[in-house]
């Protein structure tokens, strides 16, 4: 009799644990999807900027004797950045830092380009340059928003995965911590596109 009762209790406890485990697991799956989605937005924002660069370079090139080295720096930074692709699901902090650095290279070279462009009255009166300039500004803002959002969402995910006892389930199911963007020097060097 006693054995039966303890068996029933054990089965009940087991069931509750199983149900709890399932919902914890499902919660992690949801959070994981959110992170993927947020990462997709980060990538498309960076891609949007990379897509603007050829147009920008061509417009600037069209203007008389624009400093060549600045343009090559932008083009080089762009090709370097597009070669660094990472899978956010398995990215180590170092990989993400490398990605961030490559993108930061674009920000820096674009920032220099914009500063130099200020010295060319011909450019400042060029309608398509002005439009590209405002598109670039909007894109930098989109990158910032997407990155902040990614960090928020991945923080929520990491909290789910690291807390005890959920961490046991995460370990079994192979949910790893997500790396995050770091605030750094490059982020502050984003092209300061201003009209005077």
């Amino acid at each position, binding site marked *: 009799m006693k054995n039966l009762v303890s068996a029933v209790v054990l089965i009940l406890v087991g069931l509750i644990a199983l149900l709890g485990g399932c919902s914890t697991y499902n919660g992690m799956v949801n959070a994981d999807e959110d992170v993927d989605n947020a990462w997709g937005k980060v990538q498309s924002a960076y891609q949007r900027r990379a897509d603007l660069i050829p147009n920008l370079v061509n417009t600037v090139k069209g203007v008389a004797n624009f400093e060549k080295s600045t343009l090559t720096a932008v083009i080089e930074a762009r090709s370097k950045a597009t070669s660094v692709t990472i899978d956010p699901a398995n990215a180590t902090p170092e990989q993400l830092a490398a990605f961030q650095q490559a993108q930061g290279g674009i920000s820096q070279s674009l920032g220099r380009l914009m500063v130099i462009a200020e010295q060319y009255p011909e450019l400042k009166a060029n309608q398509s340059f002005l*439009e590209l300039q*405002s598109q670039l*500004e*909007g*894109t930098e*803002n*989109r*990158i910032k928003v997407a990155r902040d959002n990614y960090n928020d969402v991945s923080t929520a995910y990491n909290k789910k995965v690291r807390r005890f006892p959920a961490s046991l389930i995460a370990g079994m199911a192979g949910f790893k911590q997500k790396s995050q963007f770091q605030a750094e020097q490059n982020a502050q060097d984003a092209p300061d596109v201003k*009209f005077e």
Partner: protein
Amino acid sequence: MKMKSLLLLLSSLWVMNGVFAKEIPARPQTLVNDYAGVLSPAQSSALEQKLRAYEDSTSTQIAIVIDRSLEGEDAFEYSFRLAQAWGIGQKDKDNGVLIYVAQAERKIRIVTNVGVQGFLTDALSKRIIENTITPAFKKGDFYAGLDGAVNDIIKVAAGEYTNDSKGNAAAGGAISFLILAAIIIGVFVLFSVLSRRSNNGGRGYYGGGRYDDRGYGPGGGWIIFPGGGFGGGGSDRNSDWGGSGGDDWGGFGGSDGFDGGGAGGDW
């Protein structure tokens, strides 16, 4: 020394947590919110009427906020947070625009939700600020600048959105016709079933034998229920339309799709 760095760390954490950030006002019941008091009541309500009429015909929400000061926060950051927190634009369409003005800092921002970026690009937003808002603001005429900007946005959207609104109206008409038809058929079937029942005294031998073969008997119930369901949907929709047509504005749509798009300027 240790204490100092700890304090520094704490204060930087505070900044990150937004304790120093400007507080966002509760969701208002108007599209035009002049916290700086630069518009006369007549100007404010003229703008409000125009924006509500525009929302009625296109569902696009254009909100205007004039603040006294940004209280040290960045114009982009604050206007973005504000638009996101208020949820400007319909939830499923993300079609919201915020025209934000900070009086003390002389900053202007047009914040666009993703649903309007197809026509109101960053470049066009910039152009509207530079060509319409800034010149009027420089003369001190806030109303002219804002009204002109609203007109510009409506004009820019017209290419894409007249079609959209026509399509919606047509679809709406088709839906209400279907609902009406469903109600009429539902009532008709209900009556015929009821009268048949009373004539035959329920499901008699004759009715059961003949109709059940074709699956008609249970079919009666099937037809009635969808009919009743549609009828309910119809009245819901009608009351929705009544609401938006009246004086009470329905509030912001609750869209949170802002992605940082838009443009900024000053005067």
